[in-house]
């Protein structure tokens, strides 16, 4: 069976998005949630590049993927900074314990 490269990329995108989505739902640790977000964004980035290549506009796909990489890195940095400071102040990284912060 010969599968087109674009379809292989799409399967990878669906898999990465599914795994990231699953990780977001099951993770209780703040840093693990950032890991799940990173996996989700890798899927989105691969989708942008594959779509760019399929449409014959790979440079457009690259420039959009570049923006995604920058935004993703900043999200990771901010998430980790939040995690570290929450751990220092409240002694836990568990999102269920942090729900005591409500009102």
């Amino acid at each position, binding site marked *: 069976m010969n*599968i*087109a*490269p674009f*379809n*292989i*990329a*799409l*399967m*990878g*995108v*669906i*898999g*990465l998005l*599914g*795994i990231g*989505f*699953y990780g977001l*739902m*099951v993770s209780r*640790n703040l*840093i693990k949630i*950032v*890991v*799940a977000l*990173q*996996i989700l964004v*890798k899927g989105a*980035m*691969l989708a942008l*590049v594959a779509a760019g*290549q*399929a*449409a*014959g*506009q*790979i*440079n457009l*796909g*690259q*420039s959009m*993927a*570049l*923006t995604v*990489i*920058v*935004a*993703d*890195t*900043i999200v990771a*940095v*901010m998430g*980790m*900074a*939040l995690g*570290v*400071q929450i*751990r*220092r102040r409240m002694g*836990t990284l568990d*999102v269920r314990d942090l729900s005591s912060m409500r009102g």
Partner: protein
Amino acid sequence: MLLASLVALTLVFAIQAIRARQLISSALWLAGVSALSATLLFLYGAQWVAIIELSVGAGLVTVLFVFAINVAGDESLDRKAVPPWSVTAGFVILFVFLMGWFLLSRTPQGPGSSVAEPALQNELWISRGLDLIVQVVLIFSGVLGLLGLLAETDAPLDGSMAAEVMATRELEMRTELQGVESQLLNVQENEP
């Protein structure tokens, strides 16, 4: 075949990154996902993004993860989902099915644009100049976030700690006062 193998390996690494009990293992599996994604991007013709993904995703972000885990501690939690497992699995299967149906039912009809594509530098600096400005702002906020990651100021005193500090100070003042009183008594006794 190579592409399919790389995609399968990427998915395995991603599953391991979610399944790993220790945060440090999770970060290392994620670095593997980044490296394999960079290889895939290279094979799909996005060489510049592949280089940046390899250096930033597999390098910088992994270093930051390891640093943050060292600072915050590797707090391993039970992987017990907040929503029930059946609900989680149902949502994920539905999501993957819908995405698969939506994406795979559309086969590409060859290159969509017959117009010559602009070079990457023109695309980046001219067509998507606004994106670059947003990226600069994002990088600035990322630097501020990094300062937050490195900040080591203590938390402000909460109620109980403030009361404890006040009690300690009061005790110290009382001790000093008692010392002064005893000195005064000694002086009065020694006076003729």
